């Protein structure tokens, strides 16, 4: 409860910042729409040639794109700003002040900043999802919606865990901006339905860097095509990643000797 209040306070402060920079928000909305449209161009070209690829129709593939946008938005609002700041704190040694506070350091670090200007990606992702469902003529059942909520929560948990692990690397390497940049570029692969990745890539994108679980699984859930077993797999995967990232974080903090240490 205490933590919920703590996070809410941080979120309120960040939201006030958004209201302060309204023009920035309009520009970012425009850019996000532009980027999304340009990313859809391959799909437009592709589906003008045929009706389905890897078992995905145009509308269904758009559902994946929609989830990708929403997840990307969540990442840049909730996860990334705090993680970037944490990396900077490790770099400068100011992480000490966070560690001294009488609350769980991982939660403090993970909820220190939100960037609501990036809301644009979520808005556009939702528009795409709505458009895709309308194209398909699909109205998700209550069960499908429930499954989607669980699948999406798992996706956010997975993404968060990966970021915590990357951020923890900063304790060892100090400079990890490039690493986050690399992860960002790989994350783009989550824009396409998982079934296009075959062989070794299918394995990597399911088990090592579970991009498929992040966007394809929620898409299947929303379309009502997700088997209960797959949903369980996603939840189990997310739980495992959370545990591992927690372990990595505690180990890293234990080894932390502050700047100049």
């Amino acid at each position: 409860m205490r933590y919920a209040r703590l996070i809410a306070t941080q979120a309120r402060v960040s939201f006030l910042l958004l209201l302060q920079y309204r023009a920035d928000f309009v520009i970012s909305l425009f850019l996000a729409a532009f980027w999304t449209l340009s990313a859809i161009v391959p799909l437009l070209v592709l589906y003008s040639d045929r009706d389905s690829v890897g078992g995905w129709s145009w509308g269904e593939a758009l559902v994946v794109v929609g989830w990708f946008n929403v997840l990307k938005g969540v990442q840049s609002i909730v996860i990334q700003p705090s993680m970037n700041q944490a990396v900077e704190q490790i770099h400068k040694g100011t992480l000490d002040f966070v560690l001294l506070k009488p609350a769980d350091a991982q939660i403090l670090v993970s909820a220190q900043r939100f960037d609501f200007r990036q809301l644009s990606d979520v808005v556009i992702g939702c528009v795409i999802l709505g458009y895709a469902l309308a194209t398909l003529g699909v109205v998700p059942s209550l069960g499908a919606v429930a499954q989607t909520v669980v699948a999406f929560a798992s996706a956010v948990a997975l993404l968060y865990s990966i970021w915590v692990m990357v951020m923890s690397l900063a304790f060892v390497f100090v400079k990890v901006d490039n690493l986050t940049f690399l992860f960002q570029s790989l994350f783009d692969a989550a824009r396409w339905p998982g079934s296009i990745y075959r062989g070794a890539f299918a394995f990597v994108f399911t088990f090592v860097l579970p991009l498929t679980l992040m966007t394809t699984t929620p898409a299947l859930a929303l379309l009502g095509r997700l088997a209960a077993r797959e949903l369980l797999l996603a939840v189990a995967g997310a739980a495992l990643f959370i545990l591992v990232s927690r372990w990595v974080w505690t180990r890293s903090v234990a080894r932390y000797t502050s700047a100049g240490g």
Partner: protein
Amino acid sequence: MSAGARVAAALRPLPTLYRVGFADAVAYRGQALIWLLSTNTPLIMLLLWNAVAAEGPVGRFGQAEFRAYFLVTLIVRLLQGVWVAWEMNMEVRDGSIASRLLKPIHPFWSYAFENIAAWPVRLVMTAPVVVVAAWLIGAQHVTNDWRQWLLFPVALFGGWALSFSGNLAIGCMSFFWQSTLAIAEVWFGLYVVLSGYIVPLELFPPWAQAVVVKLPWAHIVSTPVRLLLGHDTFEQSLSQLAAQWTYIAAFTVVAALLWRKGVQRYEAFGG
């Protein structure tokens, strides 16, 4: 001062600028390596289009053709990195561009040479990619016209120069407007879609293709790639190169005009 002496004076600092830039590139080779690994979009697009071609070819593109196309695209992209719009925007905003203005060489040259100086390091890093790509592509999927092989470096360099001059023009807008990064981002977005970076331009519907191949972005990636793959005749390649260099000249003139106007009103911050 005679014209010859003036050119000589302009050329004198170049070796030094080059050495500084080269040392910079060597010092930050780790960053360059990560940049190389992060440039994986063509590979992801290859996986996507490969899955498509597995169910039947698209136009002339079967799996082998897509492989050749996106591997060459990757190499072209790796050798062409340009970031001067971002660099200029930052320098104008924090005032550090003033130190460039003091130097006895036009800042356009110092930006260009800093970028060019990174080429050897980048070339060395790209070399393994080229070897693997050459092995995967095979001789039957590249042009067998030696004149096109000779033109390829020109087209590759032209693509860089086009990208650079466009970036330079956007960077010069920073004198008038702070948020030029949004323009730079739109430029990059158009580049991604309209240069052939994620979709071969000939797969666009005919009406779109007719427009897109005339735009500047097509001459950054698509022109050198098509040249090397032998998708065009020699004569077609020549006319594309002519268009490419026309754009380079146009963007450079625009950049120079913006620069002249911009520097006059520039007072840095706190000015």
